[in-house]
């Protein structure tokens, strides 16, 4: 059974154990912790208003969530005025059914998909496959993990856990129609091959399905942000465009969207803006030579409306930039798959128990050193460590069995006791706390550079030491 239906989150410790002993994963993760973090720091430092924009972004989402019913109504009205359709889905099964019904009505055989975490959340690909409709992931990272039958290991870089050689092997296995002696030494040749293979699929797909980074109430627009252009090809070339989004993606106005866009790419990849930011409003109009003939939006709740008014409401401000995992020592050490379900890293540790239940996801909030870096870099100023603590309190309240409880604390202790990780976490934590107490926008004074240079020398965990500790851990249980 797949991870979608059967999360491995309850086995976080085992997953982490395996991840630490996986040399290819460790090689891939080593790259990530240097690249993303340096890029974000540099990009934030270039913009004097960055900290003020984070405040503004937080306030916009707080205002929107407090009035979400009203903005949803306004959004729906504008979509319908533009000739689009809005569907509501209480849960994953309902969302899948709505999409399958549209596919059936259109007689669709293939769906070209832009990257969508909500599509992962509702396990759409399996449902499409089962109904005889072929889902084609077109984001390069998503395409690679689809070939491997995996889920994303990172919300913006689904295949960050893989090395170039692993991807080459996958392409040779899948693209059997190509010359088997072809040279795929250079990463560019892999990119060119994927571009060629997917281009034909874009042109022949019946339905284009994308997620949405934002939905704008003022205009009824859905917004996607990509670097590849795959989302745009998916939604422009097919006859039908389906947008699948969770309902907290709403923002009131275009101006509100641009506030969030200004912090999104900078926090994610350190770009000033991603290459393509596209606002789509309804289907093709009179005189339009291209664009979809039908435009559908599927709005998913899946437990989110019940998070409002609880201590987890602030999680709904998340714009899925990935900064929290890019800066998380635990994520760096074990990668995304160890978290066992769709959302990894600190944001996943908070969101997963909300979406799949504390029984299955309850261990994840322990996968933290409480160093505070995630909160320090979250553009939406989401208090992630505080919410992880809330989950741990809830575990007590729910009177989970003592053994599960102990396993939970054990997972935390495991990270806290790894001396290298712990030292690193404390060092970073102190830097982060110091930063939070300082004047806004003084990135030049951050100990980023030294922190991350030292990180380069941080040795990958050694199997033997780990084993020894692991034994001690188990013995102590």
């Amino acid at each position, binding site marked *: 059974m797949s991870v979608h239906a059967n999360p491995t989150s309850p086995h976080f410790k085992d997953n982490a154990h395996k991840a630490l002993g996986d040399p290819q994963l460790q090689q891939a993760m080593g790259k990530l912790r240097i690249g993303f973090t340096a890029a974000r720091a540099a990009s934030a430092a270039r913009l*004097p*208003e960055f900290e*003020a924009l984070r405040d503004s972004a937080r306030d916009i989402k707080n*205002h929107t969530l407090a*009035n979400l*019913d*009203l*903005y949803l109504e*306004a959004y729906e009205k504008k979509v319908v005025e*533009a000739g689009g359709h809005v*569907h*509501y*889905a*209480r849960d994953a099964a*309902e969302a899948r059914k709505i999409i399958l019904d549209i596919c059936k009505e259109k007689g669709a055989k293939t769906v070209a998909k832009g990257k969508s975490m909500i599509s992962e959340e509702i396990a759409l690909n399996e449902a499409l496959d089962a109904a005889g409709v072929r889902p084609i992931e*077109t*984001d*390069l*990272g998503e395409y690679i993990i689809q070939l491997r039958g995996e889920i994303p290991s990172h919300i913006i*870089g689904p*295949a960050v856990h893989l090395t170039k050689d692993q991807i080459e092997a996958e392409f040779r296995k899948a693209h059997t129609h190509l010359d088997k002696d072809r040279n795929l030494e250079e990463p*560019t040749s*892999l*990119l060119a091959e994927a*571009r060629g293979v997917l*281009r034909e699929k*874009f*042109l022949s797909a019946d339905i284009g399905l994308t997620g949405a980074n934002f939905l704008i109430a*003022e*205009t009824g627009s859905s917004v996607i942000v990509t*670097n*590849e*252009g*795959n989302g*745009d090809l998916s939604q422009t*070339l097919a006859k039908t465009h389906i947008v699948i989004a969770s*309902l907290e993606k709403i923002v*009131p*106005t275009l*101006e509100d969207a*641009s506030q969030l*866009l200004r912090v999104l790419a900078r926090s994610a990849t350190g770009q000033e*803006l991603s*290459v*393509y*930011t*596209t*606002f*789509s*409003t309804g289907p*093709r*109009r009179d005189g*339009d*030579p*291209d664009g979809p003939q039908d435009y559908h939006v599927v*709005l998913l*709740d899946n437990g989110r*409306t019940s*998070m409002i*008014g609880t201590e987890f409401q602030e999680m709904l401000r998340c714009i899925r930039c990935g900064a929290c995992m890019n800066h998380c020592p635990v994520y760096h050490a074990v990668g995304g798959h160890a978290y066992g379900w769709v959302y990894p890293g600190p944001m996943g540790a908070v969101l997963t128990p909300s979406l799949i239940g504390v029984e299955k996801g309850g261990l994840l909030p322990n996968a933290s050193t409480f160093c505070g870096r995630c909160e320090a870099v979250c553009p939406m100023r989401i208090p992630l460590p505080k919410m992880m603590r809330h989950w741990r309190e809830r575990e007590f309240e729910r009177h989970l069995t003592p053994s599960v409880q102990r396993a939970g604390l054990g997972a935390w202790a495991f990270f806290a006791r790894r001396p290298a990780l712990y030292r690193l976490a404390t060092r970073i934590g102190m830097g982060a706390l110091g930063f939070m107490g300082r004047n806004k926008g003084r990135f030049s004074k951050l100990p980023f550079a030294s922190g991350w240079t030292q990180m380069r020398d941080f040795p990958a965990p050694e199997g033997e030491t780990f084993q020894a500790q692991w034994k001690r851990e188990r013995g102590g249980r």
Partner: protein
Amino acid sequence: MSARDEIFASLRRSLHVSGAEGPRRAAAESRLRENPRGVVPQRGNLPRAERIALFKRMAESAFASVSIVENARAVPAEAARWLRDNNLPATLRRGADERLADMPWRETAVAVSEGASDGHDLNGVSHAFGAVAESGTLVMTSGADNPTTLNFLPDNHIVVLSADDLAGDYESIFDWLRARYGKGMMPRALNWITGPSRSADIAQTMLLGAHGPRKLHIVIVDEGTGLL
């Protein structure tokens, strides 16, 4: 109860509201009506010449190339030069935009065809609605004048931008869009483009030319102050 009704009911239960409260409605309606600006970075708030220079710098840092010409009649020669310098065939596909149609393409060796792209055009040329200096971003609107497919399918994309349409920030573009399409209205597709297509999904190495254009060349028509 329909899914819609149940979701709204759950939402209002969590928010402890009925949805009918006057002050809430007034606050939301006023935000939608007034579309207040948030924090607008000062970076792009520059006199014309410096704004153009900033745009050029930002677009180049996103791996686009940028040329400035003195008038629209000089665009075809610049496009031909760029195609030649990049060893590309002298072909271009464009939409119905009159500003492009009026340019003296016949004075060059470039064969220009018209219409949306079916995926078999190597090179496309479009006219931008506007651009934003803050991030070096082009703003494209859908329609027969500049079909959306030309922004994504051709391998190489040339975009013509009038310097008069270069804004400092995104918020100015929103005002211009409202002036053109009406408050609350949008073109079917509004594409912001910042550099050529790219991906970092293979071993976290940034490579240009993922699914969209591999190369993006911007020709700014500056009939203004003679700054070059």
